[in-house]
C-alpha cells in the first residue's frame, strides 16, 4: 500500500495532469469500459451470491422473518434465544467431538500413507489412484452404502466381519456412544485420499540436496525421514490441520443422512441444527438459524486467528 502511494506521488507532472483532465470519453478510450464489461460476470455473481448474502446474514440475525411477511427488527433476541436453548451445549459438544475424532482418525493416517508412498519407486500411480478412489464416490452414495454396512442386526456387514473374530454384534448408529465414531469413520474413508494427494504433492518439493547432505553426514533412513522429509511437510500440515477443523466444524451430510441428529441428539451438530432451525418445523426461524451460523463463523475466525498467531514462528519453513 505505502509503496503504491509513493509511486503515485512520484509520477511525472504531465501524467498527473492528464489524470486530472480525465473525462468519461478518455476513460472509455483507455479501456475503462471494457475492463468493467469483462469484470461484469464476477461483479454480478459475487455481488448477488456472495457479498450481498454476507451482509444479509448480519441483517437477518437481528430480524424475525419467515421470508413471506415483512421482517421485524428484534435486536439481539435471536442470539439470546440460541444461548438460552438447552440444546446449545449438546450441539457444541457434539460438533467438537466430531472434529476431535476426525483429527484422531484422519490426521495421522494420510501422513503416514503419503510418506510411505513417496518412497515408492514404481507403481506410485496405482497407490495414489487407490487412495483417491473414495474421494470421487458421491458423498450421498458413500453415506447410504455405509449406513447399510452399519446394519445393527448380526447379519449386518460390519457385524458379520466382527462376528468372525468373536466381537459384537454392535448397534452402531442406534447406540448413543457409538454413533458419532461411526459417522467419523465414514467421513475419514471419504476424505483421507484427498489429504494423501496434497501431502504427496508437497513431498515432491523436498530438495534432494538435503537428502544428499544428510547422507554425507551419515544419517540413517529413519533420521532422513524424520529430519528432512517431515520438516518439509510442516507448513502443509499446519494448513491442513486448520482447514480440517474448519471443515469438520461445519459437517452436515453425515449426521443428516446417517442419523438425522439421533439417537437422542447424540449426533446433532451445529450445521444440522442450523438446517433444522431454518428449514424444518422444529424451529422455522431463519433469524435464529443465521444467528447460530454467525456464532459458528465468529468462533472459527477467532480460532484460526489464534492458531496462526501461535504457530507463526513454526510454520515458516
Amino acid at each position, binding site marked *: 500500500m505505502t509503496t*503504491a502511494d509513493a509511486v503515485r506521488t512520484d509520477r511525472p507532472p504531465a501524467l498527473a495532469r492528464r489524470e486530472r483532465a480525465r473525462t468519461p470519453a478518455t476513460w472509455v478510450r483507455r*479501456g475503462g469500459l471494457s*475492463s468493467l464489461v469483462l469484470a461484469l*460476470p*464476477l461483479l454480478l*455473481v*459475487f455481488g448477488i451470491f*456472495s*457479498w450481498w*448474502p454476507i451482509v*444479509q*446474514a448480519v441483517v*437477518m440475525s437481528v430480524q424475525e*422473518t419467515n421470508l413471506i411477511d415483512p421482517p421485524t427488527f428484534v435486536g439481539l433476541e435471536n442470539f439470546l434465544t440460541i444461548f438460552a436453548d438447552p440444546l446449545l451445549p449438546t450441539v457444541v459438544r457434539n460438533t467438537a467431538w466430531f472434529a476431535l475424532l476426525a483429527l484422531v482418525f484422519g490426521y495421522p493416517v494420510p501422513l503416514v500413507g503419503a510418506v*510411505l508412498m513417496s*518412497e515408492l519407486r514404481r*507403481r506410485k*500411480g496405482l497407490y495414489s*489412484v487407490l*487412495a*483417491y*478412489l473414495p474421494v*470421487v*464416490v*458421491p*458423498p*450421498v452414495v458413500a453415506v447410504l*452404502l455405509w449406513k*447399510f454396512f452399519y*446394519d445393527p442386526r448380526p*447379519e*449386518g*456387514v460390519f457385524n*458379520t466381519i466382527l462376528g468372525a473374530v468373536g466381537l459384537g454384534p454392535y448397534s452402531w448408529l442406534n447406540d448413543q456412544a457409538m454413533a458419532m465414531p461411526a459417522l467419523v469413520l465414514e467421513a475419514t*474413508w471419504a476424505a483421507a485420499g*484427498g489429504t494423501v*494427494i*496434497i501431502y*504427496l*504433492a*508437497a513431498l*515432491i518439493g523436498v530438495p*534432494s540436496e538435503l*537428502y544428499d547432505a544428510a*547422507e554425507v553426514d551419515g544419517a540413517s*533412513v529413519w533420521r*532422513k525421514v524424520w529430519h*528432512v*522429509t517431515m520438516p518439509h511437510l510442516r*507448513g502443509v500440515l499446519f494448513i491442513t490441520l486448520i482447514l480440517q477443523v*474448519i471443515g469438520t*466444524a461445519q459437517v452436515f451430510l453425515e449426521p443428516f443422512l446417517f442419523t438425522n441428529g439421533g439417537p437422542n441428539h447424540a449426533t446433532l451438530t*451445529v*450445521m444440522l441444527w*442450523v438446517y433444522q432451525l*431454518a*428449514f424444518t418445523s422444529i424451529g422455522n426461524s431463519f433469524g435464529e*438459524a443465521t444467528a447460530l*451460523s454467525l456464532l459458528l*463463523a465468529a468462533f472459527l475466525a477467532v480460532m484460526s486467528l489464534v492458531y496462526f498467531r501461535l504457530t507463526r514462528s513454526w510454520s515458516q519453513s
Partner: protein
Amino acid sequence: MTTVQTPSSLRTTQPAPAVPGDVDARVRRRRRRLVIDSGERGALSTADWRRPLVKHTWRSMHLVLLVLLVVWCLGPLLLLGKFAFTPTQDIQSTPLAFFPNGATTHNVEMAWTRYHIGQFFLNTVWVAVGSWFVQVLVATTGGYVLSVLRPAWARALHWAVLATLFVPAVVLLVPLYKIVVDPPIGPSLINSYLAVWLPAGASAFNVVLVARFFDSLPREIFEAARMDGAGPFRLFRSIVLPMSRPIVGVVSVFAVIASWKDFLWPFLVLKSDAVKPLSVYLQSMANVDKGTLMAALAISTLIPVAMFLVFQRMFLRGAGLGGAVKG
C-alpha cells in the same frame, strides 16, 4: 506460489506407451527414467535400496500399505458392485457371501426403469455443465481483469474477492436461500438450475487460482499483441484464453467434482423431480427395496469413478494443486 507445475512424480507415473516400435515413446520413457535417476529422489537413496534390511523393511511396508488400500478404499466399492447384482434377501441375510442364490440383474433393471435413475443422472450432468460454465466464465474474465487489465479499482476488487475465502459456507446458507427465493431481479429461482449454477460461480478460490496463473504469463506477449492493435477483448480471446488451457482444465475438474458432490444446496433449491440431481434423489430413495437401492448407488458411482480412472492424472494433479494453493 507455484501454480500449475505438474507434480513430477505424477508425470512419471503415466502408463508407459504400449507400442514397442514407437521410437518417440521409447525416447520419452528413457528421458523419464533419466529424470528419476538424476534429480528426484525420496529419503531412500539408491545405496539404501541395495541394503537388504532397508530394502525388505520398506518393501514389506509398501506391501502392507497396498493391502490396506485395497481393503479399505476399494473394498466397499467392490461390495457395492456385488450388491447391485445380488437378490435382496441375500443382501439382507448373507451380505458377504459370494452369490449364494445366484446373481440377478433385477436390481439394476428396477433402478433404471422404475426409478428412472437415468433421468436423474442427466439432471446431475446438466447441473454440472452449467456450474462448470459459470465458474469458468467468472474465473477467467475476473482473473483477466485482476491480473492483466488491472484498472484502478482492481486492488479493491481483489481484496473483496479474497475476503470471501475467509467466510465459512455456513454463514451463506440461509441468506443465500432467501435471495434465491426472492431474487433482486426476476421470479423465484427455486426449482431452477440457475439457483445452483450462479452461486457456484462465486468461488473466490477459482478466481485467485486463475489470476495467479495469469500473473505468470509473460507480459511481453500482451505488449506485442497491444502493439499489433489488439483490444482487451481480442487479447483475452486470442492470447490469454488459449494460453490458459491448463488452469481452465484444473478449474473444470474442481467444478465438476464439486457439483457432483454437492447435496445440501441442491436439496434445498431443486425440489421437483424434473430437476433433482442424483444425490438429492438417492437420499429420498433410502427406504426402497435394498437391492434396488444398492443398484442405484452403484450406477451413480460408475460415471464419476470411470471419469476418474480416465482422467486420473488431471484429478490427482488438481487435488495436489488444491493443497499447494491453500498452503
